């Protein structure tokens, strides 16, 4: 990657990290508030809600930022991956709320599956992009 590419990637990573950090804090606050009004009934899905944006967002994009040779994911990859993390986060919040209320819903499965499909689509498309990028560079070097 060129210096310009690196600078652009840095900016994008910074922005993404900030958004995920805010979402992580919001999730932590939301869980804490929800537990305050749940009369001692707790749910792991609610308690650990913040882990989805923290691990799936902050941690992943921090690693992406540290490893400079990895390019910024394409818009498609980012959209799919962010949607996956968002789906898991909302699904976890809803599962927690249902557990605290003392009920269940078969539709919760939709969140886990849809989240997994979207996140996987984002990761796979990124891997393909990286692989193609390397191939292209290798081809260019050999041609020279």
């Amino acid at each position, binding site marked *: 990657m060129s210096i310009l590419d690196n600078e652009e990637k840095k900016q994008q990573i910074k922005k993404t990290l900030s958004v995920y950090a805010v979402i992580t804090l919001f999730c932590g606050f939301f869980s804490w508030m929800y537990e305050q*009004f749940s*009369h*001692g*009934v*707790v*749910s792991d899905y609610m308690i650990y809600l913040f882990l989805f944006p923290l691990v799936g967002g902050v941690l992943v994009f921090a690693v992406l930022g540290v490893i400079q040779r990895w390019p910024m994911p*394409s*818009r*498609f990859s980012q*959209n*799919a991956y*962010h*949607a996956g993390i*968002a*789906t898991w986060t*909302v699904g976890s919040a*809803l599962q927690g709320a*249902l557990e605290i*209320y*003392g*009920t*269940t*819903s*078969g*539709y*919760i499965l*939709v969140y886990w599956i849809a989240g997994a499909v979207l996140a996987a689509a984002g990761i796979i498309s990124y891997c393909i992009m990286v692989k193609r990028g390397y191939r292209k560079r290798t081809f260019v070097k050999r041609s020279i």
Partner: protein
Amino acid sequence: MRFFKKPYAFGILYTILLILFTGWVALDTFVIPHTYAVVDQSTTGENTSETAQTLSLSQSAGSGGSTDSAALDTSDAVVTENTYDDGNISITITETREYDTTIYVADIRVSSVEYLSTAFAQGTYGRNITETTSRIADQANAILAINGDFYGAQKQGYVIRNGVLYRSASAGSDQEDLVIYSDGSFDIINEGDVSAEELLDAGAVQVLSFGPGLVEDGEISVTQNEEVDRAKTSNPRTAIGMIDPLHYVMVVSDGRTSESEGLTLYELAEFMESLGVTTAYNLDGGGSSTMVFNGEVLNNPTTDGRKISERSVSDIVYIG
């Protein structure tokens, strides 16, 4: 595909989709009524099942809702503010203070287990079909009633009521149920050990699926460390216990208010044990906890501790 690559358009559209879907799931879970069977109040019950696998209305007469209560003659009953006695049913209500909590105890003696019955909200077995305990009690001509297990909040867990099997889907091997047999005896079973059909064959008249069991064979069967999530703090509680077959206690405690803290599950078990029960079982608590006697709500039901009002529930256990 081009739309999918746009930075904000996709995000906005997906967020809207996620909100709409979540709203729909919440409505389906908490609001939209799903009727599975309408219980005929006068005969055996009429099957309008949408889920045939959960319903078997092959039982004989006397199995539907408040059939027996309809025939109950209360004209010779001696009724006071705290007692009821008609020769077949004898009820004494006492109010006591333990653990900084007001506890209402109904001591019940009946001549037949038929007087210990259950009823569904709106006479209907289904999900999100609810009414207040006092309203269901009124429709069932109940003398005394407490809230049941709120079966409608779950999709699994055995439901046998008045001799009819409504739901045979197991809630898992950890689920403890209260079984009331045709001889008036109580037993606490684990859904992992026995099927709903086997319970019915063994003479189960009522199966309540909430729990856990509080007292078994006269011994407290929960410990402070083993308490389930929902039981760790002080809350309004509802419990039912058997001293002897045809001699029962129904207990409701106030909670979540400055006047009445509420009970932990272990405190409730200790209290039930002190009443001399051999078997006791925890029913739905919190805002659902309600005791109705002669049409009057005795306790102070509350969900948030600020407003005293009855919560609508799926079902009741009653004497009548």
